[in-house]
């Protein structure tokens, strides 16, 4: 069961989304809040796997709330659900460690996919987010592969990294590589250490930066 929290100041949106989520298999909305402060307080007493978080909220907005969740509730994943489609918001939230970002006008199927992807893989990049991040990276510097890393990634680590980028679960990567899921986790941890990424989303950004993966 995937336990969800829903934080949005608009009652109508909260109601509509909760009703949609109620129909999804293995998903349960365990917390509904109207702002970030209510959410943080709720997270102290209610275990949650994923937070569906709006950005523009009174009292405590989604940006500050993301920062605090990443600091105080590191196991909780954050999926931003916003009307803002501007690059600056998407890039900033992903840099803060959000596990995914999608627009409120997303189709029901995409919402389902995003929740499951964030739960299983730790991230969900919609087409919009991939485009924005890639655009940002290309603008910042030339994207090209490099072979002279100080601490280069091993072939096995690269295989795991490519698996993560293509949204494979740990089990799927393990099957492809003919190793155990535990071994995949081991490589994944090494990847996090070597790249300095904080989560799977960070690993994808790293792979894109280094030209190791193109969406």
């Amino acid at each position, binding site marked *: 069961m995937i336990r969800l929290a829903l934080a949005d100041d*608009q009652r109508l*949106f909260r109601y*509509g989304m909760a009703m*949609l989520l109620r129909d999804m298999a293995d998903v349960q909305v365990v917390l509904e809040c109207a702002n970030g402060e209510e959410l943080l307080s709720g997270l102290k007493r209610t275990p949650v796997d994923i937070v569906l978080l709006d950005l*523009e909220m009174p009292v405590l907005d989604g940006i500050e709330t993301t920062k605090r969740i990443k600091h105080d509730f590191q196991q909780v994943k954050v999926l931003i659900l916003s009307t803002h489609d501007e690059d600056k918001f998407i890039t900033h939230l992903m840099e803060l460690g959000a596990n995914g970002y999608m627009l409120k*006008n997303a*189709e029901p199927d995409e919402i389902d996919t995003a929740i499951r992807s964030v739960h299983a893989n730790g991230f969900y990049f919609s087409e919009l987010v991939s485009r924005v991040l890639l655009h940002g990276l290309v603008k910042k510097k030339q994207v090209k592969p490099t072979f002279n890393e100080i601490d280069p990634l091993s072939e096995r680590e690269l295989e795991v990294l490519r698996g993560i980028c293509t949204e494979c679960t740990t089990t799927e990567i393990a099957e492809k590589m003919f190793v155990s899921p535990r071994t995949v986790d081991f490589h994944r941890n090494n990847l996090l250490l070597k790249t300095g990424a904080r989560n799977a989303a960070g690993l994808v950004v790293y792979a894109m930066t280094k030209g190791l993966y193109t969406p």
Partner: protein
Amino acid sequence: MPDPHIDLTYLERLYKGDRARIAQWIHIYLEEAPAQFQRLSDSLEKNDTERLASAAHDLRPQAHYVGAVRMLELLIAIGQRAREDSANACAGMVGELRSLGALVEDELKTVIAADDPAKEPV
């Protein structure tokens, strides 16, 4: 008969055609929308650019849900114009939006009434 200002295709997809849920959603819309539209007018009156842009922004998901294309266009345009120029520069668009909002509400009431023949439109 004039063209409708709403298209409930998205809501129907969202709730898999469950008329009761769609009606429930519409009921909440009808409860909440007047205050949100009022917020637009109040912001305009006070020439409060940020508040106007924010109010327009907040209404966008609802416009999308009810398939009110022109309403969505206006909300986006108001947000942009308010930030680039001033709240006062959006007076015409806010006026059009409020008229459109009233038509949308009427059409939504008709939808609910059609689903529940025992009830007259509110």
